[in-house]
């Protein structure tokens, strides 16, 4: 299992980025209406669908 450890620097960068992003995201959420948040959620899900099936290959 040791061989599956993540890259230390990526791991640290993601921890810091994730935590800061979490703090900012929770503050930003109230800047958006229910409708906008649902649109963002739907667009994110569509993006993942297109990536998953390799329909979107350019971004």
């Amino acid at each position, binding site marked *: *299992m040791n*061989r*599956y*450890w*993540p*890259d*230390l*620097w*990526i*791991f*640290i*960068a*993601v*921890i*810091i*980025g*994730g*935590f*800061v*992003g*979490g*703090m*900012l*995201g*929770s*503050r*930003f*959420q*109230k*800047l*958006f*209406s*229910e*409708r906008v*948040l*649902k*649109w*963002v*959620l*739907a*667009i*994110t*899900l*569509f993006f*993942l*669908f297109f*990536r*998953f*099936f*390799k*329909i979107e*290959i*350019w*971004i």
Partner: protein
Amino acid sequence: MKKVSIVLTLLIVGIALMAAVPNSTLAAAKISASDYKVGDTVTVEGSIEPGKDLYVTVVSHTTFAPKDTDGVHEVARLKKEGQKRGFTNETSIPVFYYLLTSNPSKFGEVTKKKFGGPSFLPGLYSTTMFKLATFDKLDAEAKNVLGPIKSKEEWDFFRFAHESDYGINTITKEGAKRGKITIFARSILGDYASSGNYWDKGTSIQLDKSTGKFTVSFRTFRHTPPDTKFDVYVNGAKAGTYNLQPKGFWLSRGYRYMNPIIITIGAIIVGIFFTMIGAAGGMLMAAYQVIVVQTAGPIGINAANVLRSSNIALTLFAPLGAFYRYAVVEKRVAWPVGISFGVGILIGSIWLGRYATKYLPMSSYKEWLAVLVLIMGIRTLYELTPKVMEKRKAIKAMVKKFNEEVARAKAEGRAVEMGKIETVKTGLTSYHFKFWGEDFSINPLLFGILGVVIGIVSRSFGIGGGFLLVPAMTTLGALPMYVAVPVGLIGSAASVPLSATP
């Protein structure tokens, strides 16, 4: 007379030797430098026997054989692939290998390749790739210039490492891409100016067949590990060695040069998205790592197994960063639903997920996950239609209050104050609460069961469950996003311990 006969004898012996060995010994070449930085262009100049084709073979000193990996999954997979494709645990090949030639057709052919789209379709997009020939189809001249690759086993392993997705992601770590999709790994390279092939980009081969003079240059792989040494052979004869020095910050397990600050910025953006919508944090981080960072993992370890373990940092730490505000400052966590869902996901992932991965071929269902993502996206948009909004009276009233508060806050020059969750009644099957003065009710047991299902999915595919839970809460539970998101984050964080398992 004696002297003349000695000279004649030497001349005859020399001619005989030249005739006996391949034309390679006639080649003379010079590499433009002994040290380059990764991504630099290497130039080789010299001359070969007039009228002959040119073969410049560039091979790394770093080699790999299946026995070199200690990744549990890689050991099993490479053994299976070896039985199918004809290589063994001991078969060793150079990790980086390029053959620059004026005659690529000696080693294979340019074929059409379909790619993209779901597996049940032949491929949405069409491109070309260089398909390596089988060992039997290589003639003596081709076999003579392969450098350290001598046997059929080695050639078969080489083909696997350059043409199979698994081989590329585990061994060569370098892909010739269309868009962001790896088609194959470059190995046989021709002159880009005359071929126009996308994998030949950065390669120039100029050969004057009448004199045998040549100049070859090619761009080295930007993410070659620091201080990788290469041997250069010209028409089978060793011409020299060069070394690639690092350029940028080397990620030893990510196997890429990248400044960690760029990764931090990406994680911040993904973290903001994730904690705003409560879903898809792990999947977005994985997409960022694949598309931007291009995390490759060390040689012998499949990229996905290194990538997955660094993703969990996001699905755990982004909710932690958001939690203080959601739970303590704004009191927006529906605890009974969150706890029920968290317990469900743990049961699903730890207990049932083990059996699911053992007895069901879950990987073959992977594409259904994409279909599920699509359905959830459509359902979320459907929730926004006037017909549905009309039914969701509590949400409609809450949206009105939110808009009024935004307008008030703007007029008064202060931050928007969110509504809080006030519990009315708590039970196993019914949790009744007020949010911004509006009544909402949800069944925690139902979401516990949903958590079990999501836990199984999470264990099987190594992802969180937010993308299922948040749309489920907003559609089935008719809850506002402001309440669904904190619960979705609890679920994603609960799925972390098991989603890290490769």
